[in-house]
């Protein structure tokens, strides 16, 4: 397979509601942003596209994918729609990667959108909960926050993780988003604010949970030859990984941990894995992506990560899946300051200042603060990661606070509920 580069990205403003645009119009905003960022790129040069959106229910429109494809002027070229719950965007990028790696395409657009405002929040929660087994799970009280809450309760029981450690993630992501004009929620919070917010599903409060959004995002991938023509700031997709797990949380086995290169069997002597406390799909995706990219010690070799924090708890669980710390240490990892940005004052005390910012996680603000227009989310992560590696955060956000100096390697992580599909892609500055 041949190398694949990310050459451009664009996003629409994520907002609670964008009634001024249909989903095609939102996709066009993100697509044009990406097109305008590489002036050499013409519509003719794009020879394939992949669209992603999660739910036909939100649009009440089947085949929205082709309707966006025709609106963007990409017919009659090859195109497909990718769907995999919350990981839809990450899968979309990987599908576009496959188009180019296989030689089927030279320049491929990967774009995603979701218009969730067309139904009220609680109906929206119902639609999302239909992404759980409708025979056994949904009728018992189908509610995604409830599912993730059960997972983190087991994490707390197993490892002693605390709600305050979860809250630290919320403080971080909202504060990071303060410097990101594309984010939906830009707030300076304290741990107490998060804990005192209305309880949604114990122990997760409203500030532990992402919100629904309308929005779109787009990245343009290219072969080496095409990338050279288009940009002097290409980013290489150095590795891709994808994992899966059973839809019903109850069905997850209790086996052994698939080890990363920086782990040993004796680290997890008595651990039953993944149970409901960990995401085996996230571990598989990380393991594959690291093997593909040749990464041996993720914490040392990856400069930042944009990961799927639909819940503060899932960010903490994902630190462990991605091997930033050992299983069980996610809460402590959050509280240590390692995933925070060095140059932002979060109003928190960290035990060892020298550890702060070791591997910033969700410098953009993540889903919790940016919003989660499902089909666009994983692609939004790609856009922010691209800009980090290109060093163009200030150009795009008019604020350089969240620019990670000298970022060379970044990871994006996209996750479908309740850990069913997970993708990890490793991106590397290639100029």
């Amino acid at each position, binding site marked *: 397979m041949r190398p694949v580069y990310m050459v451009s990205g664009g996003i629409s403003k994520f907002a609670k509601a964008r*009634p*001024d645009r249909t989903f095609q119009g939102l996709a066009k905003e993100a697509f044009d942003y990406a097109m305008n960022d590489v002036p050499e790129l013409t519509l003719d040069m794009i020879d394939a596209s992949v669209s992603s959106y999660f739910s036909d229910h939100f649009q*009440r429109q089947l085949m929205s994918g082709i309707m966006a494809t025709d609106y963007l002027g990409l017919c009659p070229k090859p195109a497909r729609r990718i769907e995999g719950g919350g990981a839809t965007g990450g899968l979309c990028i990987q599908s576009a990667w496959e188009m180019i790696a296989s030689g089927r395409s030279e320049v491929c657009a990967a774009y995603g959108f979701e218009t969730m405002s067309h139904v*009220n929040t*609680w*109906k929206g*929660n*119902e639609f*999302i*909960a239909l992404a759980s087994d*409708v*025979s*056994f*799970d949904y*009728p*018992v*009280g*189908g*509610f995604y*926050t*409830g599912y993730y*809450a*059960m*997972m983190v*309760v*087991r994490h*707390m*029981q197993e490892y002693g993780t605390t709600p305050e450690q979860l809250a630290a993630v919320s403080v971080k992501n909202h504060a990071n988003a303060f410097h990101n004009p594309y984010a939906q929620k830009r707030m300076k919070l304290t741990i107490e604010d998060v804990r005192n917010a*209305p*309880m*949604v*599903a*114990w*122990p*997760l409060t409203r500030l532990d949970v992402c919100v629904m959004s309308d929005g779109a995002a787009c990245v343009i991938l290219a072969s080496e030859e095409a990338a050279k023509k288009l940009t002097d700031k290409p980013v290489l997709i150095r590795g891709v990984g994808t994992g899966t797990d*059973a839809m*019903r*949380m*109850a*069905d*997850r*086995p*209790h086996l052994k941990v698939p080890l990363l290169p920086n782990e040993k069997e004796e680290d997890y002597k008595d651990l039953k894995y993944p149970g*409901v406390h960990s995401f085996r799909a996230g571990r598989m995706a990380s393991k594959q992506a690291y093997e593909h990219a040749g990464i041996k010690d993720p914490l040392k070799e990856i400069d930042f990560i944009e990961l799927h924090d639909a819940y503060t708890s899932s960010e903490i669980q994902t630190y462990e899946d991605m091997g930033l710390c050992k299983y069980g240490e996610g809460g402590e990892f959050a509280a240590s300051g390692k995933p925070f940005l060095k140059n932002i004052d979060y109003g928190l005390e960290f035990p060892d200042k020298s550890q702060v910012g070791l591997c910033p996680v969700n410098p953009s603000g993540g889903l919790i603060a940016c919003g989660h227009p499902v089909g666009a989310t994983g692609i939004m992560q790609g856009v922010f990661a691209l800009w980090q590696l290109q060093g163009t955060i200030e150009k795009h956000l008019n604020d350089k606070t969240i620019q990670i100096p000298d970022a060379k390697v970044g990871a994006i992580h996209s996750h479908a509920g309740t850990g069913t599909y997970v993708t990890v892609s490793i991106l590397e500055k290639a100029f």
Partner: protein
Amino acid sequence: MANKPNLNPEAAAKIEETEEGTVLFNVPFPKDLSQLKEMSPILVKQPYQIDYLHSYGQDSPFFAGLANKKLLGTKCPKCGYTYGTPRLHCMMCGAECDWFELPQEARIHTFTVCHFGSQEFLPQCPFILIQVEWDGVDTLFLSRLVGPDPNEATLDWVGRKIRARFLRLSKFKPTDVYFVFAD
């Protein structure tokens, strides 16, 4: 299309937004067509209701079991894996499983209290969700815990012994069974 009430900005009180909307048959239109791009979006209500004839298919015996106050799981005759939520085919080896009756005493593996929920379940909030575990059974079962005060949630509930109770009038839904503390 619904008008926002003109509230005193200093008043904390707020009328809740509803979705009835207004029946409207025409809108003002500019003489100059170039002004159309400034037009506010038109939102119309489109109701959507459907009755599905959902078949439980190979899982049907489980629901027949609930109606007869029995909890059924499945067991793989080939590799021995046992399922607390039934699957007719084994996830580990692919063989066809056999039905067996699960004990009605179990333990809480994990839980949450839902203070909000999907629209369908909002009227039932707060309610308690649990994953049920049995000794020697490899997978769990999602159910509800009834009895304890939902505002007194504590990690101590994990591991508590529970007992199954069944609805007298079966609805052929997984909620035909629920659990109460047994200790």
